[in-house]
């Protein structure tokens, strides 16, 4: 019994050591730490948005024409838009849409892409690989924005369909990434050994090969958060995403763009919000790449 607790303690210490080592590598680059700080701040803001601003009602159908088009002030940090809604509150709530979109899209496309990639990479030189990879090629041949536009145009423009459309454009990238990793890992001796000893294919794909894909996939996911948000904002910008009066960041940029340069706060702040969140995720992604880079020595 004592041996068991000693082992658990040692396991705990070793895991702690591994994580602090990883943190060390991550924190070598101060920008990555900055990115992480910003990302975490944004996430926290998104969660506690009702508590940060008194203007939560401004997110929905709300008008206050006397207060419309006010420049930034102490009562309205980012000013008000053309119908009197507080821009700051709308930006914060806008982050919710962006993050929900990003999480949903990645939550759908990553598992799909990974599974297809594993299977295609393992069953190389068979019809399975050919089928999967050619379908992937078709999706990859069309620019993501165009593809998403086409899909949404067939359906109704709203957040849900936006999520579906973007997911469909995104899974092929993960498929290709995992496909190439699987192809190289599959040749390694440890996979050969496990095949020879009689492990099931499911075990080989999920317990032997997949763990070797985690690092690049995780890094890509982090960098992709930024790209997905951009794509979502672009779709909203052209009217194919979050519809007004909902505060999608891209929508706000579009609506506010008509009021430049006089009502600059209506566009600039949502646009800045997009830039900051993308930048933050990119920096974190860079840091992750460094962290996973050389595990040894």
């Amino acid at each position, binding site marked *: 019994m004592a041996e068991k607790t000693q082992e658990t303690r*040692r396991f705990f210490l070793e895991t702690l050591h591994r994580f602090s080592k990883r943190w060390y590598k991550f924190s070598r680059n101060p920008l990555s730490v900055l990115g992480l700080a910003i990302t975490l701040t944004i996430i926290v803001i998104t969660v506690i948005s009702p508590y940060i601003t008194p203007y939560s009602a401004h997110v929905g159908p709300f008008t206050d024409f006397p207060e419309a088009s006010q420049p930034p002030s102490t009562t309205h940090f980012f000013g008000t838009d053309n119908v009197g809604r507080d821009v700051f509150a709308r930006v914060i709530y806008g982050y919710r849409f962006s993050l929900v979109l990003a999480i949903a899209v990645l939550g759908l496309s990553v598992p799909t892409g990974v599974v297809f990639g594993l299977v295609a990479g393992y069953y190389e030189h068979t019809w399975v690989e050919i089928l999967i990879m050619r379908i992937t090629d078709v999706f990859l041949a069309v620019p993501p924005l165009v593809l998403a536009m086409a899909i949404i145009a067939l359906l109704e423009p709203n957040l849900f369909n936006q999520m579906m459309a973007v997911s469909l454009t995104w899974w092929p990238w993960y498929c290709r990434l995992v496909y190439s990793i699987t192809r190289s890992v599959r040749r*390694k001796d440890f996979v*050969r*050994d496990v095949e*020879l*000893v*009689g492990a099931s294919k499911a*075990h080989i794909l999920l*317990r032997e090969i997949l763990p*070797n894909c985690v690092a690049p996939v995780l890094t890509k996911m982090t960098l992709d958060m930024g790209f997905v948000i951009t794509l979502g904002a672009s779709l909203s910008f052209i009217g194919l995403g979050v519809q007004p009066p909902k505060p999608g960041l891209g929508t706000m940029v579009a609506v506010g763009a008509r009021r430049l340069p006089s009502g600059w706060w209506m566009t600039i702040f949502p646009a800045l919000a997009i830039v900051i969140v993308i930048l933050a995720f990119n920096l974190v992604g860079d840091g992750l790449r460094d962290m996973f880079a050389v595990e040894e020595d």
Partner: protein
Amino acid sequence: MSKNAILTVSGLKKTFATPQGVVRAVDGISFSMGAGATFALVGESGSGKSTAAYTVAGAYRPDEGDILFRGQSIAALRVRPHLLKKEIRMVFQDPGSSLNPRRSVRQILDLPIKLHDDLSRTKRAERVTELIRLVELAANLASRYPHGLSGGQKQRVAIARALATNPSLVILDEPTSSLDVSVQAKIVKLLQELQEKFRPAYLFITHDIVLMRNVASEVGVMYMGKLCEKASTKDFFENTIHPYTRMLMSSIPVISEVEELLIPKQLVPKGEIPSPIDVPPGCSFHSRCPMRMDICTQVDPVMVEIEENHVTRCHLYQGAKGASSSE
């Protein structure tokens, strides 16, 4: 071929089709091993020794020839029966890539046991600890990952993994090539001790012919997919016959004067190993052989017996059958 041979390979061939042409990696080799014995398959790069090992292990299906395991033919099997998979196991050359960097030692050793023994979880954990101790590693290494182990430790784990199912044949593909010489000595000693305890037969693939002097019971030398010489270890080293084998021996940098006397000096190594796609006709060694005759460029020699259990494939000896012998 002996009666209680655990493994008999006859006329084994394996070719690969590459964009540059057909590669006859293994081009007809035959040998046999008794239970608990160690057969050394020696060769340089391109000799086909690793391909032969992988084919016997079951990673490749042979194109021609037969493999008999305990008298049963296994060459033609498309899928090997589960029970066979525990009997023939392999230790690979590069400890860096033969252990999954994302799995702990415990997980690596647990898998073969889980697949072949019907043991409860606790009993499996006990067996894992037992295996770790068997290869002379500290039990607390179980939770480590491969990158936290030295090369020697990794190979010990690989050996433990191979022996986890108590196999009757272990194929070792250059298991010590990437290790320092002092570590190599320990690993080889460990392998010998384990063989005494559990009596697996070892098919030892290596390029280091000197290592085999005191490890193997029988030695076979391969060149470009074929065996050129095969004999019991003692006969092999005391009476090296084939020109290629002699060239190999003469290029070994030995570390003592005593050994200098044992290596043939007349054959200076020259030339390069030809590309496996462009195999020259006749004897595949003729382009480098200092004793080349006309017939060597046209006809491929066959194996002949020089003395008991000592065969070679060379036109210089085609006439000599039987010969010197038992005293």
